[in-house]
């Protein structure tokens, strides 16, 4: 018997809990040569801003021990081109997709959210309240419960779409920030975004990123991500989407075990473009092996 992998994120039902993480999956279509992208629980596209954005100058990426730093700075095609060129093709491919959005001001967040609200095929809006690589907005809102409340509340009023708020790990107490998002109307929280880091070249004496600092992702951050997801799951009632260093089915299962309702796979897509489907198949195989009929029988079942 095929185990039931479907999960609910508030009113939204996904066929399975495996999504791609924003910024690591392009606009989704890039993966069509590799596999049928409609198989994923959802695709979360690269962060969209109101106007197209150039992003930071290169170097934008550096490899670190079991991880990488990026300072892309949200280069993206903007919401209009997304609506005109990308969204219809994602629908044609049968994909379930969510838009990650970003603004320099609250008004810009609202404007992007409003503009996307009319897109019937859009499953959800994920608010990036946590990008460490842009000067304004982004992390500023994500750093305090007050900032998150303000941002979440305003975007909430701007759209009827399911609303996910993506949290920054660069805080002392992520659970209280998640609680603020919950109280202000988020349908789910996703975490973690990248951890701020830095790399320098001791010979050239220069920072390796043009932006000096960047966001750390990949297996290196998994223990931190898992701890934060666990803390947030114990605090909020809304669904939690676990992100951070997930590379294999067992990584994904760990996040589900501590209470995440779904997961997003980021950096792993780079080394292995098949990562998301391999994780999906691995979860299914594990449930079968354990004779679990429903992923709900495993989720959150961490033993004391």
């Amino acid at each position, binding site marked *: 018997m095929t185990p039931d992998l479907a999960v609910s994120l508030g009113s939204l039902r996904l066929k399975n809990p495996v999504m791609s993480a924003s910024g690591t999956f392009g606009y989704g279509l890039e993966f069509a040569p590799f596999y049928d992208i409609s198989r994923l629980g959802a695709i979360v596209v690269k962060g969209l801003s109101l106007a197209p954005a150039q992003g930071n*100058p290169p170097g934008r990426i550096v490899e670190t021990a079991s991880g990488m730093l990026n300072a892309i700075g949200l280069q993206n095609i903007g919401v209009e081109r997304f609506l005109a060129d990308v969204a219809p093709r994602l629908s044609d491919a049968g994909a379930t997709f969510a838009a990650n959005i970003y603004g320099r001001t609250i008004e810009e967040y609202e404007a992007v959210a409003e503009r996307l609200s009319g897109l019937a095929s859009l499953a959800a809006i994920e608010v990036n309240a946590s990008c460490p690589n842009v000067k304004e907005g982004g992390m500023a809102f994500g750093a305090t419960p007050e900032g998150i409340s303000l941002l979440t509340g305003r975007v909430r009023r701007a759209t009827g779409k399911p609303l996910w708020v993506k949290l920054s790990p660069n805080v002392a107490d992520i659970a209280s920030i998640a609680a603020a998002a919950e109280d202000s109307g988020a349908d789910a929280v996703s975490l973690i975004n990248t951890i701020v880091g830095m790399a320098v070249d001791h010979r050239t004496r220069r920072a390796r990123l043009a932006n000096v600092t960047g966001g750390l992702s990949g297996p290196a951050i998994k223990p931190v991500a898992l701890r934060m997801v666990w803390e947030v799951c114990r605090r909020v009632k809304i669904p939690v989407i676990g992100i951070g260093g997930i590379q294999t089915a067992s990584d994904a299962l760990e996040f589900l075990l501590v209470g995440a309702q779904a997961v997003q796979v980021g950096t792993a897509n780079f080394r292995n473009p098949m990562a998301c489907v391999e994780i999906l198949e691995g979860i299914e195989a594990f449930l079968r092996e354990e004779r679990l009929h429903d992923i709900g029988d495993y989720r959150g079942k961490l033993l004391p």
Partner: protein
Amino acid sequence: MSPSRMRFAAGRIVRNEGHGEIFYRLEASLPEPVEFDPGQFAMVSGWPGNDPLLPRPLAIFRAGQGTKGKGTVEFVYKVVGRGTALLSGLHPGDPLSLTLPLGRGFDLGKDGRRYWLVGGGVGFATVFPAAAMLARRRAEYEMFLGSRTRDQLPPKEWTPGGSAAGRVHRCTEDGTAGSFGRVTDIVKERMAVLTEAEASRLTILACGPREMLKEIARAAASLGAGMQAALENHMACGFGVCWGCVVALREGEKTGYRRVCREGPVFDAREVVW
């Protein structure tokens, strides 16, 4: 013949041998054959563990038909850091993960053009496949290969298309092999004696250090010769989804960041903001 659709393939190392001081030549078997355009590349990994984490971009040096419908692919690489050192330690039989073929290769246009292929350092690995194709087409081409010293030139037997007199020019900065000097200077000297008509029929295909590309690009532009430059940049994905590998390109009045892995690695040299 158009390049295969990109894929993620579980390869297996067939051969991985050192040549000279610093080059390795690696051959891997693939579940299915690949076709590629000269200048296209692969993202290669395969060492165990997550450190290093990211795959390494390597130009596809050759690809062929293996036995029983399987494919093979070859790379030539120089050991410069941890990833290439790890690659050099892998043995026949070891697994190798490959995403390929990637990027936009050289545009080898149609008839009537004359090509100069320029390879600085391990840049030859990117231009040799173009030479092989031009040789098959019996197109008019010459090749310029430069390196710091003798051991860093590719073994002669690797040179595609035979070595008809005057076809392949080798040079070293220390004069230990071929002519004495930088490949840049030698190419620029040859350019200086071209007629206007000759220059306008010339396309340079080049891969090598950025300084080399930049100098040759400037000379080519001032002569009205065409030039396609294969660029390098640090990459995370190699297939256009991370936006990590951008370079600034001139687009009309403005400049924009374009992905080396997707819009490149081969760019019209006039568009690159050097």
